[in-house]
């Protein structure tokens, strides 16, 4: 049983379908990269997986003991209010809330989890810093640490490198790769930076309102090479 199985999924805003015929699976340890142009339905698909958007038709199933609320989610950074007063610690700590059911206060384990995840991302020294004062790359790391606190198994990242400079971008990709390889966390990453993003991916979903491709990265590269060779309509 895969972690996530998407079957004949169609998604719509107010009855207006923006993506359809989506079929793919994510297994433990996979690194799926969802690529496609702006407006092709990537964020919409991610919201459906997270349960933030009602499914229009089709289904999304969760396996291997994963429930929908145990997915670590890292939103597009622009979705977060700019002048919000919060320390990095407060932000990361809020990631543990989902696992607490009805307990009102944070436990020692929650705090330990936060320390661990901040250490993994190399942001222990940012604990007391104000979130709004950080650089883009630092903010992304904080949001990734929060996502890690919400999950054991899988993280969903929406455009994690948008607006970052090339060096910080490479660092970010490195961190994500490390989480996948060393910590065994499955990754679903959205990107429109095709060249950089697919580098460490195991699987690719190329979306343009419908999937243009789903399979392993190697298949994708062969496929692309063939298209390029034939002068096909890629791009």
């Amino acid at each position, binding site marked *: 049983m895969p972690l996530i199985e998407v079957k004949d999924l169609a998604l719509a805003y107010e009855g207006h379908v923006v993506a359809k015929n989506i079929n793919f699976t994510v297994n433990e340890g996979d690194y799926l990269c969802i690529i496609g142009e702006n407006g092709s339905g990537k964020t919409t698909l991610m919201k459906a997986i997270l349960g933030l958007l009602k499914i229009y038709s089709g289904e999304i199933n969760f396996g291997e003991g994963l429930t929908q609320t145990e997915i670590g989610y890292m939103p597009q950074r622009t979705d977060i209010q700019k002048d919000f*007063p919060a320390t990095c610690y*407060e932000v990361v700590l809020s*990631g543990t*809330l989902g696992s607490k059911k009805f307990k009102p206060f944070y436990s020692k384990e929650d705090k330990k989890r936060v320390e661990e995840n901040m250490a993994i991302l190399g942001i222990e020294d940012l604990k007391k810093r104000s979130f709004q004062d950080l650089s883009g790359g630092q903010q992304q790391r904080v949001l990734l640490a929060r996502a890690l606190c919400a999950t054991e198994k899988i993280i969903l990242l929406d455009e994690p490198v948008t607006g970052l400079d090339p060096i910080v971008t490479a660092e970010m990709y490195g961190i994500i790769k490390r989480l996948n390889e060393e910590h065994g966390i499955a990754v679903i990453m959205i990107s429109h930076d095709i060249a950089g993003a697919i580098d460490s991916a195991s699987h690719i979903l190329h979306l343009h309102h419908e999937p243009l491709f789903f399979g392993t990265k190697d298949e994708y590269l062969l496929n692309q090479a063939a298209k390029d060779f034939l002068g096909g309509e890629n791009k």
Partner: protein
Amino acid sequence: MSFTQMFADPMISEIIIKAILVGFMVSLCSSLLGVSLVLKRFSMIGDGLSHFGFFAVAIATTTKAFDIILNGKQISFALEFEMAVVVLVAIIILRINNSKTKGDAAIAIFSTAGIALGSIIYNVTGNNTMDVCTSLFGSTSIFTISNTDLVFTMIISLLVLAMFVVFYSRIFAVTFDPEFSKATGTSANFYNTLIAILTAVTIVIGMKMMGAIMISGLIIFPALSAMRVCKSFKGVVLTSAVFSVICFLIGFFIACRFSFQTGPTVVTIDVGAFLIFLLISKLKARKKVESI
């Protein structure tokens, strides 16, 4: 009567102590809720709720329908009635906010309708302008409250405080990032409704003293001032509470001393404090730029 004589008189000092109790709790509760409301860009909900509360007060005071004689004793359920109305309005505003009409339109509807309907009721029943003035701008420093209403007010405000403390971490989470909260199983809708209801009951218990028009000032200004000073959420929440209570106490004593109305005096102090903190933070920002 002089200021010190006022406190020496046991009758009046009892009134003053009751007033301080109510004002203290109302300032505290509204400043805590205000942080989340201001950050959600939803602080005007206080206006919508309190202005509609003016209408509810008008109904209760002119018809006296909620003053019941029991075993020869008169008991008033006016406060309970007002609370039911305002909580209902809070829920309706959130409903409309979730649908296509934008939240600020819903707030504006209740805000203006409440004042209009309330004034008409006072006109129809021929009540004097003094009543209208009091329920709009609040009581003078001599604020009278029955013992039953005082107990009710204390219970409600302690409940609001307890709820805020218990749900503090979730209130932070849904205010900072509602989408993430929803995705990880914390219902943003539930907590938005909770905050709106807590705001509604706080407004009702504070309205008589502070006035329907003034009460939302107690929600907005302490939070805005605190945000100028603190960069952590916890810091903003605590600072907002402290500012609010201090401003209330200063405002209240000035109101007593000069026989001003309490609500406008307290809000004026709140505004003054906000301007000072705004100025300080602007100067600091300027210094930072210069030093670079």
